[in-house]
């Protein structure tokens, strides 16, 4: 180690001890900067194939069909912005003559922590019929469901959009305000319903398997804000 420094007062150390200390310092530094009290205990992880697809879409999402801005490097570093990817728990329900996709997102906040949502999008995979003679457009609707309610009842239409599905592809739905209202309300489960129709047929990818790379997900670009003043704060 180096000779003792007057401003830190640490005596020189053995190499092994120094390495152990540096690892501990690195751990503490990482946890502190990520605002974590301890390392998260992850038992059931998202399937790697779904994760890789989401990350690939996230990083290639610079130019989007709906005109939203790119996710990366959008927040000044000093504001400690985060990008959150959350995979949906899927419940396929049968509502009268059409199928709909019920998505539930767990979105918990630390107590006393207030989050500002800068941008948020729901990513849904729409599958092409493969028939060149059929209309390649389909109508997609996203609803906000009341938590705990029965699918199809007590729901609010958030977005209605025509999708071009000449080829199977991902599509985004901006839900920034919805997510902000959800977080401001201190709720825990965000329930959305998606329906895609063309001539009464559902063409969305409604695969309920957790192994599919087409699993719907939600991306949010957020940053912490002070819960009292609603203004951004920096700690020194």
């Amino acid at each position, binding site marked *: 180690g180096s000779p003792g420094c*007057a401003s830190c007062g640490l005596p020189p150390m053995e190499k092994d001890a120094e390495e152990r200390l*540096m690892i501990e310092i690195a751990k503490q530094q990482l946890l502190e900067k*990520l605002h974590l009290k301890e390392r998260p205990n*992850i038992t059931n992880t998202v399937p790697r194939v779904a994760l890789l697809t989401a990350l690939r879409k996230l990083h290639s999402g610079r130019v989007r069909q709906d005109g939203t801005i790119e996710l990366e490097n959008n927040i000044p570093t000093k504001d*400690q*912005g985060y990008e959150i990817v959350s995979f949906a728990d899927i419940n396929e329900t049968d509502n009268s003559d059409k199928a709909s996709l019920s998505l539930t997102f*767990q979105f*918990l906040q630390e107590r006393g922590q207030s989050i500002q949502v800068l941008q948020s999008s729901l990513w849904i995979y729409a599958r092409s019929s493969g028939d060149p003679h059929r209309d390649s457009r389909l109508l997609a609707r996203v609803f906000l469901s009341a938590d705990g309610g029965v699918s199809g009842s007590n729901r609010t239409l958030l977005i209605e959009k025509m999708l071009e599905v000449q080829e199977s592809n991902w599509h985004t739905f901006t839900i920034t305000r919805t997510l902000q209202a959800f977080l401001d309300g201190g709720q825990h489960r965000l329930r959305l319903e998606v329906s895609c129709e063309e001539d009464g047929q559902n063409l969305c990818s409604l695969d309920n398997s957790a192994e599919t790379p087409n699993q719907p997900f939600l991306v949010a670009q957020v940053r912490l804000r002070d819960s009292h003043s609603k203004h951004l704060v920096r700690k020194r």
Partner: protein
Amino acid sequence: SLRCGEDVTVCCKRDFYIKFKDIQWDEWIIAPEGYHMNYCMGQCPQHLSGSPGIASSFHATVFSQLKVNGINTATTSCCVPTERRPLSMVYFNSQHSIVKTDVPDMIVESCGCT
């Protein structure tokens, strides 16, 4: 900024890399695979002190306080980080959501004497 080696005794940057797999942190950190933390070490003789850097102002203040109070005035200055860069991370948070964030000032790029 010098990189530390066997013959280097003056202020230099020591490469220090932690592979997350080695500390069993790869279960919750998706990317990157490790952390190039790096740190500064070495002597800062009088003629090297006062090298400019973003971190030097705090240490310079400490030193001037020490001198003002007559404490250890003969001591050399400190070898500290003068340049850092952010670390981009993708990880599972406590709620099992996947978070991507750029954490500022995490990787020591260069060192200098206060």
